């Protein structure tokens, strides 16, 4: 469960993002909507502990993550949060399986190759398990991003504009996949997107507004 209280963030003294108080419960699936520049990605980075709020608090499973030091946040993020980035960031020198193994190793969780294979099977990219990153298509990279986000069975899955560059067919496939794996993992799913096509997939939504000048 994530609870937001009086959350604010400012990159400089002129622009300040103010986020509505919210509670995101376990197993729920949320869509955070808003136009470009309204602080959606910033919100997601705040939830992931990658940014420190200017004001307010974020409680994840009743733990105020602002009270943790950098090392504790890194550790906590690795264990409890899975992230799907807008761009596909992977370690290029590693292959598909190794990238997933890296994620498991960094989070400190024990995941064997059999589990990785099963997950890749489920996402229909098992045939690419030994492929390098430059041998994967955009769709395969997207699936791999999702696989990595759910591999450690985190309590929270955050996705940043996961469908922005996809056509309708692939948009639907990806979002259904994300919802499905989050549901089967019993993880809280929070998707931030300006993509109007996603509105119909999520019953719970938060609308963000432009930053205060």
């Amino acid at each position, binding site marked *: 469960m994530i609870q937001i209280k009086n959350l604010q963030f400012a990159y400089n003294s002129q622009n300040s993002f103010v986020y509505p108080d919210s509670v995101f419960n376990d197993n729920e699936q949320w869509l955070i909507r808003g136009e470009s520049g309204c602080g959606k990605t910033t919100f997601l*980075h705040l939830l992931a502990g990658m940014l420190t709020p200017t004001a307010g608090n974020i409680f994840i499973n009743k733990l105020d993550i602002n009270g943790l030091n*950098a090392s504790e946040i890194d550790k906590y993020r*690795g264990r409890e949060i899975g992230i799907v980035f807008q761009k596909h*960031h992977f*370690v290029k*020198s590693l292959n598909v399986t190794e990238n997933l*193994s890296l994620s498991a190793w*960094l*989070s400190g969780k024990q995941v064997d190759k059999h589990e990785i294979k099963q997950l890749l099977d489920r996402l229909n990219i098992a045939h690419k398990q030994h492929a390098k990153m430059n041998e994967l298509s955009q769709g395969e990279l997207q699936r791999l991003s999702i696989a990595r986000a759910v591999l450690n069975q985190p309590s929270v899955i955050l996705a940043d504009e996961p469908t922005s560059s996809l056509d309708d067919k692939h948009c639907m496939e990806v979002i259904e996949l994300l919802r499905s794996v989050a549901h089967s993992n019993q993880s809280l799913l929070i998707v931030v997107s300006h993509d109007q096509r996603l509105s119909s997939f999520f019953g719970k939504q938060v609308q963000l507004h432009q930053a205060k000048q």
Partner: protein
Amino acid sequence: MNIVKLSLRNIQAKPMNTALNILLVATGLFIISFLLLLQKQMSEQLEKNAAGIQLVVGAKGSPLQLVLSTIYHVDYPTGNIKLTEAEQIGKNPLVKKTIPMALGDNYNGFRIVGTTADYPLIYKAQLKTGKLWSSDMEVCIGSKVADKSNLKIGDKFAGVHGFIPESNDVHNEFQYHVTGIYAPSGTVLDQLILTNISSVWQIHHHHHHNETTAEEDDEHAEEHHHDDEEHEKEITSLLVFYKNPMAALQLPRHINQETNMQAASPAIEINRLYSLMGIGIQSVHLIAYLIILISAFSIFISLYSSMKERKYEIALIRVLGGRKRTIFSMMLLEGLLISFGGFVVSTILSRGLLYVISIYTENNFHYGFGSYFSLADDILLLCISLILGFTASIIPSIKATHTNLSTTLAE
């Protein structure tokens, strides 16, 4: 997955870059490693073969040449000295012991040395089979001579005049008879054929006589007879052992000033040889350290640019749960792995070159290198390589830990 595997994969991802850096480190370390091994081998050989010999007396000429030809058997003798004069040195109260040496012939490139039974004793040599020579034309041979020439007890062979194995001037009239074979001693003795001095005199008396009778008239026969007498009384050099330290101050000066002979101290001459070589060795060392410095810069630049190229990956590792120390260790390990790779390559190359040189010196001078390893030197070079890797990668490693996760991943 672990940190070593991750760092290895990262440096493997840029094979050309990594290979260039490893090669640079290896080149610098290789030169140092090779020079250290060569110096060690040389000093071992020089010390072992000096065997406590305190002075060498021979014909006037280069003192270094006298030492090299008499003790190490790698140069031509400076000439001969009269036995009567040499014997006078032995009677000097400052002298404890002398050993005469008569050179002039070889067999398959192995020098035949006329001497006394004291000579093998200074190398603590022991006969593996057979017995010591007891009469003229009997020889005891070193272990290398036995191996390379396939000589056994009871075999006979003829020596070749001079020190060139291919010479046609074979003393066929005189056959040496092998009576003993020495066990390997790791000294110059392994490559020598030892006999008594009168055997050498006998052969050279005959050789000299043949030459002169062919060239000159009978009217000079009487004069030649006297010459022959003198030749019989010559030796090549004399090894001298002092009775007390005072001898080191007085005896060389006395011989050099009062006689027609020269006295050379092996310790002084070897030091002179070292100092002559020292300038060259120091220059090469300097070049090696310069290359190592360049390689450190190369690793630094490589890691620094790699850190910038991989900023997304570095941020990603943090986001996935990696701590700052994980990033620091990963980058540091990359530098250390490259420098360790350089150490391994340099170790293999230096041993390889030393092996090739050993074959060359073995074939040409019958000197091979005993050991290709020096634990202390290897540890020193390993430390140099690791310090180099650490120094080159410390700044990129620290800088990598300061990567801004949000800004980087949002780009």
